[in-house]
């Protein structure tokens, strides 16, 4: 069974900030694990990072430079095919998408329009890949996302930036 980690921006950014991104990359390459993000997550990792860098620069050039570097690193990993970008099949999963949106809105007690597309995408993408016969770990430091995915599938395993390495070292 193909092994896949669907990664949220939160976990990739946190791991990069803790200077462990190379360890993660070596691990997924060595163990032949697919590291997957949705296009909306990729946008956050690269485009949003550069926007944040520009905003922060006048106040902290050091932090801004780190963000810019981080964006470059993620763009390079995608170019090299180490991070794979997979789109959500909205036609097939439109009902699930609505249910996930409702669930997050309910958990947060906020209106549905305040639920972000990337939050829905990461959960639907995990289920989509699980349905295609893969063994999936949804990796996120966002507790609400982890809570939500557990409502929709018990087969998808979850991890945060502290537990991911241990989980990847064990057989998926």
């Amino acid at each position, binding site marked *: 069974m193909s092994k896949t980690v669907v990664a949220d921006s*939160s976990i990739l950014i946190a791991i990069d900030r803790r200077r462990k991104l190379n360890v993660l990359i070596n691990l997924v390459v060595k163990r032949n694990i697919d590291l997957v993000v949705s296009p909306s997550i990729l946008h956050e990792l690269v485009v949003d990072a550069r926007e944040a860098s520009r905003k922060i620069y006048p*106040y*902290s*050039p050091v932090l801004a430079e780190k*963000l810019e570097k981080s964006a470059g690193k993620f763009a390079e990993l995608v170019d090299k095919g180490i991070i794979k970008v997979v789109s959500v099949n909205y036609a097939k999963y439109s009902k699930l998408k609505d249910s996930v949106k409702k669930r*997050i809105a309910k958990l947060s007690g906020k209106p549905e329009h305040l639920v972000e597309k990337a939050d829905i995408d990461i959960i639907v993408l995990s289920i989509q890949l699980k349905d295609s016969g893969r063994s999936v770990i949804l990796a996120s430091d966002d507790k*609400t996302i982890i809570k939500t995915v557990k409502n929709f599938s018990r087969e998808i395993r979850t991890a945060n930036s502290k537990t991911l390495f241990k989980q990847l070292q064990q057989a998926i």
Partner: protein
Amino acid sequence: MVLSVMVFKALSRDQNIRIISLLVENPGLSADEISEKLGIPISTTYKSLAELCKAGLIRYDVRGGERRFYVEDFRFEVTPETLLKGLRSVEFKNVFSDIYGEGKYVRAVRLAGDVRDGKLTVRQFAKMLSITYHEAILLLMELGVI
């Protein structure tokens, strides 16, 4: 030039000051020549040169396949305020307060509790504060939520 923590660190090492002084008098030296003239091991010299370049205190060009180093024309105004600003700038929560003000920081800290309890996603947190996702992650990491 911005007085940053990187600059403080680079200027706090004795050998870095010696390298700068040597380059002021002898611009265009190579790493080997610097190492020899100062009696510093070559590996330490490389490390110092990298640190000084990163801090923007020196630069290099390549001549004959060799890097030649020069001192940048830097000037700092050291006042209690510039020192404080330089030190504060590495902590994002300080940067956040500087950009958005104390009021928004207090609101962010309150909302961070909801993210910690799994009642709000990081993206909702970012949207409610009108900040980028990266700013949200940096702040939540420093607040110990992530």
